[in-house]
């Protein structure tokens, strides 16, 4: 069928669909749907981790393999430091910048290292917004309950309470740095409703929320002259005789040399794992999202939590081919956009949680109600022109300029035609276990942002990631800044690595890969 004919199914069913309301699923229905169709429940994709802190725990094969991987660092590497800092922040996205700025603000000597450029991250792509309970009819308690429901009640209560209660002061901090959140006529912060939330709670900067926040944070990191080490990939942590973290080894991506950084405390803010393409899924993640922080923390002995659950964002691009896996903002559904199958029918309440919506899209496609494009890919429609019909012409240009541009580049006018979507690997729900200050079970090793786990349960609620980054970036930054005042540098050893290697040998791990992966191997080999 020609693409126009496929589009017509959506156009022709629009008026009838507008009369319809679809109920949200009951807890039991959600459960059944997810167990049958969500990729987290595909047993064949999972295996137990062979050794280390999470020995025996089930996770996806891609992650198990890098956790058991060997380091590129030789046992006898000279550990004379090239750099010294009170606080070493690894990662230059939202969590890394927030941690660096807060630690620096308290007078700590901070070094921020990243394998790409400062700011290159998933954070910069966040379009949907940031959940903070600021509206008069809302409260941190509501935010807590919504998140818990979204996370299937598996969220760490203490971490979650900390996040929702600190939300409003994070909004204040960002405003004071000049972040231009959308406002209402009375000057208050404008809030939008996100999937899985009972209240309108998303703070936005049109559909450039992450970009606006990162532009500001990056600019501020540069203003403060925080020491930067760019194009340097963290490949191993360092520990002292007691097992506390004392720094890290980096590999310069330009000349491949090892760089040793001695630090009193280390904050890992390396983001997620999408570029490992779990279960063969395309991903919305940035180029460097290869799970490096999980690997580094694991080798030094920090346990991970909930590593069997990932978020597949409902709306990844399917067509045109250039947009495969790229995120289509959830905002379209927040504003009333319908999901429509190949027969012109709605099949899920579009504002249900991400795992429910993704599972239902997979169900439609697996049961033959999807839409197959000439490229061979399958998906369902997201009815974007509906927003123009519903809220008036110009709505998409005004509220979704980034998305209009994203598609216009390839000749698709989302104001006139719907877009095809399918779930894309978006977020690592679990990660390194932390306490409310971001500290792991390894002394002086902190983790902030997507690399950490427990907060989001088995499904992260839309808009909670940006807040997570800021809250735990801030808390880890402030905690280390205070701690470094009364401590000295520890010794630099690779004892933990030697132990890890001995264990790998004992467990006869074969086909050991080198990890962290650092960058995906996309270049065709001769």
């Amino acid at each position, binding site marked *: 069928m020609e693409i126009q004919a496929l589009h017509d199914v959506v156009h022709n069913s629009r008026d009838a669909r507008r009369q319809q309301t679809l109920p949200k699923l009951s807890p039991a229905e959600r459960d059944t749907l997810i167990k049958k169709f969500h990729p987290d429940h595909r047993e064949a994709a999972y295996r137990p981790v062979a050794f280390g802190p999470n020995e025996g725990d089930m996770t996806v094969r891609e992650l198990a393999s890098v956790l058991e991987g060997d380091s590129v660092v030789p046992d006898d590497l000279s550990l004379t430091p090239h750099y010294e800092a009170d606080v070493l922040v690894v990662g230059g996205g939202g969590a890394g910048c927030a941690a660096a700025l807060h630690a620096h603000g308290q007078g700590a000597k901070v070094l921020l290292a990243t394998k*790409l450029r400062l700011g290159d991250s998933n954070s*910069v792509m966040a379009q949907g917004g940031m959940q903070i309970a600021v509206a008069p009819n809302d409260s941190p308690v509501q935010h807590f309950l919504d998140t818990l429901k979204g996370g299937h009640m598996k969220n760490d209560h203490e971490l979650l309470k900390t996040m929702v209660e600190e939300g409003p002061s994070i909004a204040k901090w960002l405003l*004071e740095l000049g972040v231009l959140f959308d406002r209402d006529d009375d000057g208050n912060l404008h809030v939008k409703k996100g999937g899985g939330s009972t209240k309108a709670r998303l703070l936005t*900067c*049109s559909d450039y929320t992450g970009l606006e926040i990162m532009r500001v944070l990056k600019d501020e990191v540069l203003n403060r002259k925080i020491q930067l080490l760019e194009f340097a990939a963290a490949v191993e942590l360092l520990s002292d005789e007691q097992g506390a973290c004392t720094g890290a080894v980096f590999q310069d991506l330009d000349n491949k040399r090892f760089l040793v950084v001695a630090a009193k405390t280390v904050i890992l803010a390396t983001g997620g794992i999408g570029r490992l393409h779990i279960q063969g899924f395309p991903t919305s993640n940035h180029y460097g999202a290869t799970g490096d922080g999980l690997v580094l923390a694991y080798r030094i002995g920090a346990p991970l939590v909930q590593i069997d659950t990932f978020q597949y964002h409902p709306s990844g691009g399917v067509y045109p081919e*250039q947009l495969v896996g790229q995120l289509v903002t959830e905002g379209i559904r927040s504003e009333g956009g319908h999901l429509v199958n190949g027969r012109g029918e709605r099949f899920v309440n579009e504002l249900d949680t991400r795992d429910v919506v993704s599972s239902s899209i997979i169900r439609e496609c697996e049961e033959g109600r999807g839409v197959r494009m000439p*490229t061979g890919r399958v998906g369902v429609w997201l009815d974007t022109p509906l927003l123009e019909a519903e809220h008036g012409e110009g709505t998409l240009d005004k509220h979704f300029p980034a998305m209009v541009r994203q598609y216009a*580049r390839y000749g698709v006018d989302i104001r006139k035609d719907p877009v095809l979507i399918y779930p894309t690997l978006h977020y690592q729900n679990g990660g390194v276990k932390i306490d409310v200050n971001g500290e792991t079970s390894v002394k002086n090793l902190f983790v902030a942002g997507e690399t950490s786990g427990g907060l989001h349960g088995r499904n992260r609620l839309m808009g909670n990631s940006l807040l997570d980054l800021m809250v735990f970036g801030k808390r880890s930054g402030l905690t280390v800044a205070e701690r470094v005042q009364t401590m000295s540098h520890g010794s630099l050893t690779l004892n933990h690595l030697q132990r890890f290697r001995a264990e790998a040998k004992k467990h006869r791990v074969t086909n050991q890969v080198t990890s962290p992966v650092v960058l995906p191997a996309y*270049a*065709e080999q001769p």
Partner: protein
Amino acid sequence: MTGSFDTEKAVSREEALQPQMVTVEIAGKSFRVPAGITLMKALWYTGHEVTRGAGCLGGFCGACATYYRTKDDPKVKTCLGCSHAVEDGMSFSFAPAFPARKATYDLNELENPKQDLFKLYPEAPLCRNCNACTEACPQQIDVREGVWKAVFGDFKAVSETFMDCVMCGMCVPVCIADIAPNLVGVYASRAYGVREMEKPPGLSDRIQAIADGEYADDWERILKMSDDELQQTSATIKS
């Protein structure tokens, strides 16, 4: 569907199987690549190891600023390499990092941000209206207009003009007055937020309410609940 993304290859099987191949020139050397793939994928497809010039791969971070020219057209254009498709006869080069000067400042300490612009970026008012910056912008921002608005002190308008700016910096090397318009944009936009915008009145009330323990009773009730009770409570909340 899910298995169709070949994780070992830059280009998915569907793309590679497309019969149509095109010829492109990458940094002066000719290659055959599948039609319709992005410039970034063309780099991978032709065996280039990419460590610089790739970031979010979604058109938001500005890492992959690229110069390109289409067949027989003398005009050199700009784009983001992660979000632009190859065409037959196209010639392109990824832009190296340009050594622009960023002024450093403390927005709260500035005496008069509109005047201080001329101290921090003294070249800003020297714009000669050549419009090269606007033409160089892959985001179609009216960059020249934005610079003038900054010079005239309309920082609110600057913030609106530059909201789409991904900081790729393509406007900088073309400026004959050595202005870095994107950096002027960030400065003016932040200065507007910090110094001109009123703080939202409701926000401080909410922060105060949390500090005063206004939700303490709710928390106590909630945190005592078993998982079952919590589940029931969350399920009954109505929007």
